[in-house]
């Protein structure tokens, strides 16, 4: 990209695409609330704690990935890269526990 086009993008429509401060502050508040829920749920007993861990924690991670790490504003390639990685880890996880289960 030339300096000229970079400046044009800066003063042109590019600003409209960028989210403002408010979006990220809302996400941060959501993350704090979810952390509070996670801590609360962990006091309700082992089963509730494990379910909290398995649902609320990935949700928090997803919020950070999607908003803070700008995946929401990226094209499909970045999302595919992340999903393929998570899928690979999930396959390894499933393989390990299928081995454990039939030992």
């Amino acid at each position: 990209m030339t300096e000229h086009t970079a400046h044009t993008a800066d003063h042109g429509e590019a600003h409209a695409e960028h989210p403002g401060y408010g979006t990220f502050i809302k996400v941060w508040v959501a993350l704090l609330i979810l952390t509070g829920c996670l801590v609360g749920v962990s006091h309700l007993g082992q089963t509730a704690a494990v379910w909290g861990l398995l649902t609320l924690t990935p949700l928090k991670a997803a919020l950070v990935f999607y908003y803070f790490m700008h995946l929401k504003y990226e094209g499909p390639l970045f999302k595919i890269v992340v999903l393929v990685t998570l899928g690979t880890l999930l396959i390894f996880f499933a393989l390990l526990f299928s081995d454990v289960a039939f030992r």
Partner: protein
Amino acid sequence: MTGHVHRDDFGSRLGMWLFLVTEMVLFGGLFIGYSYMRYRYPAEFHHGGAELNATLGIINTLVLLTSSLTVVLAIVAVQRAEKKRAMAFLGTTLVLGVVFLVIKSFEWGAKFHHGLYPNSAHLATLPPGEQVFFGLYFTMTGLHGLHVIAGLSVLGVMLWWVATDRIRADRYVHLENGGLYWHLVDVIWIFLLPLFYLAA
């Protein structure tokens, strides 16, 4: 500047994401190891988790979440050419990162004081499941701590570059990539909190 300046922000971010993916696999392997060991030693992990200071873990979660917010706000500020604000946000991130490490050092210090550290005589007397728990605890929080130090170093350079206008409204992909790294460090901690501190 004359002529054609080669610049590929998309490729730069893609490269960063590919690196982050290797980090995810690195920690992912440890998480999978943790899950098997917790399945095998549920009572010992429960007992080990009770030894940890959940309050410090929760405070550090709030510290890191807030530091992640200030990084992303710094990017917004740079996009809007609000240099002083961007520097204030980045400075806040650095301070919060140091606060995280200080809290962490107090926490580890207390464990060491109780004879809980890798290869300690006291640890050798504990049941195998608890030895595994503390082994994973020190490995995973230690590796995470190293990532916090690396992230702070990177963001320190970013702050310098914002101050010297190397990062500015029309050129901020370095800051985005530094931020991406910091957010991944935050995500890893998001998982470490329930796995260790809330395990009891």
